[in-house]
């Protein structure tokens, strides 16, 4: 066998091995989704059976109708709420964190480093610790929801979309992420922009944003997913079903002793679908952002 043929065979074998490993990895990742999809067509008896079946013995597409109609005011209302919460929350979060990140990266002011360290230090406070103080802040928000100037007399922002969205808009980790991204842009761009008559906002919008788009999209996707999957905080600051997000609706499918996994899986498919679509739409930028930011799952 000539050396070139041997090299060719080695490359082929290496390539085939890579594909086998990648396919195995992909199957491993995709299996829970396939399981969820197949499970969504099983009836309550089959979905609770042990050992479980993989392929449904009989198909029950009506699980989707049941999943849609099971929660009060149908799953549609909760999906709409989650969309409102995730879209507005993520938009505001990206806006606020971009401005903060830009300020820490580009503006010079006394105490900048100390302030930035203080912002970073907030990442070390567990969410559980801030839960009750945040709730108190929401309930006693002055001059809203019947409250007076001192936050007494009413319910503040309790049971509003704002209450769900407000905490976390200025997430320290996202500020850090964006600051790092802005700092990678060469300073010469700013000098050139100044010569062209660009101010800070113009530079941020016209130059920085396009150059750091992958990082911005990463922040947006993580923010969107976090809000889409949020359960405890929305539960705590709402009472009206008309405001509650889709993860709250998911709790209606579970009972203490007997869960209809078929319906639960159907609901999970409906709830997961928007996230999958979002990811497919921006996967290239998202992966680029994750790689450039040095993140991993």
């Amino acid at each position, binding site marked *: 066998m000539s050396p070139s043929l041997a090299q060719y065979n080695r490359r082929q074998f290496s390539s085939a091995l890579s594909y086998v490993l990648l396919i195995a990895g992909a199957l491993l990742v995709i299996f829970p989704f396939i399981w969820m999809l197949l499970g969504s067509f099983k009836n*309550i*008896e089959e979905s*609770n*059976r*042990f*050992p479980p079946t993989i392929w449904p013995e009989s198909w029950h597409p009506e699980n989707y109708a049941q999943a849609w109609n*099971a929660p*009060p005011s149908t799953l549609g209302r909760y999906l709409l709420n989650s969309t409102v919460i995730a879209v507005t929350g993520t938009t505001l979060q990206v806006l606020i964190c971009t401005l903060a990140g830009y*300020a820490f990266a*580009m*503006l*010079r*002011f*006394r105490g900048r480093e100390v302030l930035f360290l203080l912002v970073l230090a907030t990442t070390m406070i567990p969410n559980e610790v801030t*839960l*009750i*103080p945040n*709730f*108190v*802040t*929401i*309930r*006693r*928000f*002055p001059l809203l929801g019947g*409250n007076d*100037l*001192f*936050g*007494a*007399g*009413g*319910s*503040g922002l*309790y049971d509003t979309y704002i209450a769900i969205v407000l905490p976390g808009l200025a997430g320290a980790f996202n500020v850090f992420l964006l600051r790092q991204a802005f700092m990678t842009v060469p300073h010469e761009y*700013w000098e050139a922009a*100044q010569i062209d008559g660009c*101010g*800070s906002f113009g*530079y941020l919008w016209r130059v920085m944003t396009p150059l750091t788009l992958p990082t911005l999209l990463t922040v947006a996707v993580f923010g969107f997913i976090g809000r889409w999957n949020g*359960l*405890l905080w929305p*539960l*705590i600051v709402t*009472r009206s079903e008309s405001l509650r997000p889709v993860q*709250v609706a998911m*709790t*209606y*499918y*579970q*009972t*203490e*002793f*007997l*869960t*209809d996994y078929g319906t639960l899986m159907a609901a999970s498919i409906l709830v997961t679908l928007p996230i999958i679509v979002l990811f497919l739409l921006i996967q290239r930028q998202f992966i680029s952002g994750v790689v450039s930011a040095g993140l991993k799952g």
Partner: protein
Amino acid sequence: MERITRRRFLAGAFSALGASMLAACGQQAAAPAPTSAPAATAASAPTSAPATVSQTGSTVKIEYWHRIGGDSAKLLETFAAEFNEQMKGQIEVTSIAQGNIQELNQKVRAAAAGGGMPGAVMADDYDVTQYYASNILVPLDEYINSPEHGLTQEQIADILPNQFNRHKLAIYEGRTMAFTQGFSAFTTFWNVDLLKKAGVDAPPASWDEFPDHVRAVSKANGGVPGWLIGGAGDRYISTLKTYGVEWLKEGGNESNFDAPEALEIMTWWRALSDEALLAVPQESARDAFIAGQSIYFMDSSGNTARFSKDVKFAWDARLPFQRNTPKPVTETYGPVNAIPKTSAEQQLAGWMWIKWLLTPAVHARWAASTNYFPSTRSALNDAGLKAYYEGNPTARKLVDEVAPYATILPPSPALTEVRGQITANVVNDVLLGQLSPEEGQKKLKAEADAAIKRALGGA
């Protein structure tokens, strides 16, 4: 680059700080002064006729927070609608699902700090102890005994004594801090087919005979495990109770894990574990039992709902085995209702609601929907509940054989940690051979006592 001047920066920063402080440091908004006495204003029949609850003439609106999902959550909404119709112009209840046990607990704690407590709240037994320690509940005795709004002697007699007194405890200074709404209990389930194959007609009479019994049945069935345990800490403490030993000593300052029975249980558990006859599986012990992969399963009586649908072999259930107990005992599970401190009107409305939930026809529908034991005897006469038990006869049997003997574990603010973490870890270590039973008992005693001391405010 355009510079932000120090003045502009400081002005912005102080504005933001001021707004935050204004929001955070407001006065206590919606935490009304705690009240205890019912605001009884007019005579009415205790259960059916609308009572005068409002002192101003307007409808008293309250929320009822619970942790129930599925159809039973919808049933609670139906109940609220029916109650509101009966109490039109007096009380209006909104039933709100608040997630699971932990999420509901978080919500109650947040509301206790920030205001907006509900008129009534569902709680698990050990939540009640924590809420009592936080001083956010009202005692129910004055409501129960109120001539206008309380319970008649007939109604009190209708409630199972172990449920009526479930939260009338010494640690509450003898007061009643929560009201029953159905319950379940620690129950023994077994695979009748596996026993028959071993030529055994019935389970053993007591724990003493249990190890040899499972050895024999397992041997006749190819080595199938005797008992797969779901939740080592929970089951160990439940088993200790059926040995006639509560996990906590009188006074509540020290655990009982130095009792000889605690070592005895650990010793035979370890012996069976070494023989692969007892284990805490990674996967669901319940699913393993349903699949015929263990002889026994010991857990909530509520499991009959699933077993009656899913189990393909002959199975049965009974009171857990006992040892040295003067009368049978088992552990109560399931939620209770409590009334948080709000206003006198709201508290009374809350009481009227949780009392109404125990009226026979309503309570029977609740028991049929949740598979909880009914807390009242009269509910058993309901045609709907009778029909339900025809489809789940084991559940009906357990109403007679298990329900009367169920009591809660001695409550303590440390119980969640002692049971869910300390006991679970130590028992697992013993079963895996990392500790001897003697070492396990000593470690369990030391760590549990330290946790109790911490929870009671000690070092």
